[in-house]
């Protein structure tokens, strides 16, 4: 029997966290983030002029008596926003010792649990070259087991194609909401444009970039035969200290591009090396990125 992704003590620590998003979304009452849209809430928001078709029950009849004009009372709502978690299951996530894929599944499980505790509905959507069948979980912490088993059963395979995946996602899920992407974002055709489409359609992005130490700081020197985990292509190169230094600089620039996409669209970004403990990643890095609080 495989070891569970998260142990009980860690889950108990996660109960005090909440997934946060900045953008206001329409939705059913019952969420925990305020919306700037008026609706059937309990807390007064503002007045506006009455228009035909407005609900007469919201008219401020006292103001009408004094001013002889019809004003409509607007109330603040806290809608349930759909949270969708796109989890990269491409072969590059398993490169090396497979630590990235395990880290990604553990992080996804933790975010699922945080959302379930706050009665959010979280949909886990694995992807590689296409969007794979996902698993929706909601209704409280007792439904965590379903999401965890789904995550444990995932296997890494395939080539990353963000553009196809985003297009399929937007067709499948037109309702806007929070989109958490857990990936290494290593798509040879580039992922920035696809992520921009995702934001342009009104979704709030939370981009979590994972990398292993080998991804950022190659340990080899000398002649190395490198094989791409996804495409199968190989490259025999000669690595020296200068090349390693430039490689790391390129990787950091790539990470900066991912971060820029997120911040430009009022989203959030967290870069997590797999050598970092998951507890530090959630309670330190992601909290500081205001992804959760």
């Amino acid at each position, binding site marked *: 029997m495989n070891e569970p992704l998260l142990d009980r003590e860690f889950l108990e620590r996660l109960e005090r966290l909440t997934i946060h998003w900045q953008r206001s979304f329409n939705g059913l009452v019952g969420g925990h983030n305020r919306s700037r849209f008026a609706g059937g809430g309990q807390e007064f928001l503002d007045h506006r002029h009455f228009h035909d078709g407005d609900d007469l029950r919201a008219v401020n009849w006292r103001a009408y008596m004094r001013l002889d004009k019809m004003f409509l009372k607007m109330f603040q709502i806290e809608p349930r926003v759909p949270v969708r978690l796109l989890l990269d299951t491409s072969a590059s996530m398993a490169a090396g010792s497979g630590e990235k894929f395990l880290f990604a599944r553990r992080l996804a499980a933790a975010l699922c649990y945080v959302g379930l505790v706050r009665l959010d509905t979280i949909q886990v959507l694995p992807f590689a070259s296409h969007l794979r069948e996902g698993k929706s979980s909601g209704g409280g912490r007792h439904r965590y087991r379903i999401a965890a088993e789904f995550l444990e059963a995932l296997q890494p395979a395939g080539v990353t194609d963000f553009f196809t995946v985003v297009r399929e996602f937007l067709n499948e899920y037109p309702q806007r909401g929070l989109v958490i992407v857990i990936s290494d974002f290593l798509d040879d055709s580039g992922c920035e444009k696809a992520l921009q489409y995702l934001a342009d359609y009104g979704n709030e992005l939370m981009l979590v970039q994972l990398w292993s130490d080998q991804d950022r*700081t*190659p340990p080899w020197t000398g002649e190395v035969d490198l094989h791409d985990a996804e495409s199968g292509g190989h490259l025999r190169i000669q690595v020296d200290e200068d090349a390693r230094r430039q490689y790391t600089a*390129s*990787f*950091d620039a790539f990470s900066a591009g991912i971060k820029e996409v997120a911040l430009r669209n009022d989203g959030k970004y967290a*870069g997590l*090396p797999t050598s970092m403990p998951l507890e530090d990643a959630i309670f330190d890095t992601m909290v500081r990125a205001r992804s959760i609080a």
Partner: protein
Amino acid sequence: MEFLNLTFGQFAALFGAVGAFSVALYLLDRNRRKEIVSTLRFWIEPGKAAPVTRRSRIQQPLSLFLQLLGMLLLLLAIAEFQFGGSRNARRDHVLVLDTSAWMGASLPNRPNATLMDAARASALGWLRAVPSADRVLLVRADALATPATSWELDRRNVARAILESQPGATALNLSQSLQFASQMQRGSGSLPGEIVYAGPGRISAREANNMSLPRIPAFRVLAVDDNIENAGLRSVGARRSATDNGTWDILVRARNYGRKPRLVNVTLNFGNIPQGSRPIELPPGEEKEVAFNVHTRAAGILEARLYPRDAFPADNYAALELPELRSLHVVVYSDQPDALRPALASDSRVFAEFHPTAQYSSESGKDGSLVILHHFRPETRPQGNVLWIDPPLDKPPVAIQSRVEHPEGLRWMPDQPLTAGLRARDVQIDSSSVFAPSPKDIRLAEVNSGPIMVASVSDDGKTRSVVMGFDPFAGAMRYELTTPLLLANVLRWVAPDVFRDVDVGTQSAGAVAMPLVSNNGSVQVLTDSGTNLPYNVRDKSVEFFEGESARVRVIAGNSERVYSLTLPEMWDVKWTPPANVRRGIPAWNDSLRRNLDWWPFLAALGAAVLIGEWIAYGRYSPVRLRVVKPNLERAA
């Protein structure tokens, strides 16, 4: 520059092989590293890394250089690299110190000093001249070559072993000692030095005839002058007289080892009682014998002395232990004693006592004597050993089935000691009883009608009895040779210890060869403590080796020889060294030979270089184990 353990060619070949192997391993290890990565996009951007154009290329020349350097240093350490030529290299010498018996002789001009003292002084002088870096092995040489030390750098240990060396009891076996020294030198692992012999070089004639010295490139002789006049006993032998049971025939042999004729006296004492003295005139290098008779039946120490005393007293005295002369008491009950008297009187070891049958006493034979019942059966049988001769038909000792006249088809059982040597088939027996023996009885003679002579041993093995159904002392048979032989066999079977042929002799220690009288039985060579000495039977003689003074018994069949190996084994000839050997104490310049041992430093340096290379370039270097912290700020 010198490689002590290897020639330059061997060293170069070895280093070439190791270096080629190391380079091949290096190229295989460094060039075939295959890594699976998440993406290649950051490598293929221009300017990041150079694609490989050659398959095999030395990536880290310093790493390979350090590896080769480390192995070179280790190989130099193994080869015991030294600066300078082989002339100054460390060598191993073997000092063969003569410890033969002759080394106990006094020096002619210094009565209080021996040849051993002179040899020790020469050996110590040579030892002082040996360069301090050279190793020395001391071998003590007499009949055997015995290493007294290991390969020693500490001169005090060798000097102590030299001073503790004492003359032995055997003669020098020089060729064996030099072969042993040469063999030790070949196996030492260092350059061979000298093989030095310190002694007078006196060897046996046997070795001189078959001498085969090994080829020794550096052979030195530290000669000891032994121009000594000496005469000594070569052997003392004692044998029971064939005519008189109470007499020993003593034979003393002496030799003059000197260059002048000598007149010596040989005196004999038995139990501190003088038995006689004889003068012998000994020409130079010759041996002579003198004979003595000693009348005694008792056991005791027989001592032979040679006068006047000379420079080597060890061979002027010999002692041997004479055993008690025993006889067999035979009690004969016969009414015709004259028929048996000649047969029993013929052997001096038999003491016969004749009684008429009417005076029979059942106490006879209690003391281990033999009772002969001649045509007579007493009411109570004797308690000891019995020989029944033609017992009466009434109540015989063995059941009689019939009585036959002139029996035919006489057969002696050849496998029984009682009938050993009896072959005659035409013996005429006038009449005989034919027995019906029990299964325990031993059948000795048979005729066509059945057994006519049987023997038996009591259950406890203490008493023996022989029953003859016929009288060999009557009729025509009394003139046959078979009759005394048969009686002698019976007496020998009843009392084997009495009739065993005993020779006692004094010989020199070392290799002893004793002629075998009969080779029909097992041979035992025993020391005083009863342990068996290894021996070899060759050319009808028994050969064994005893390196120390001891008493050795050799029992072969019916004879026993007792050797008192109290005389030292002496030399026969003086060995003349070849003309090309070195002689005397050498004059080496020690300062030229005092080389520093480089190999520990080379080994340590080689190991340090390899460890440093492993730390700097090894696959598990700390650089690779370091945990890389993410640089988020830089990534931003």
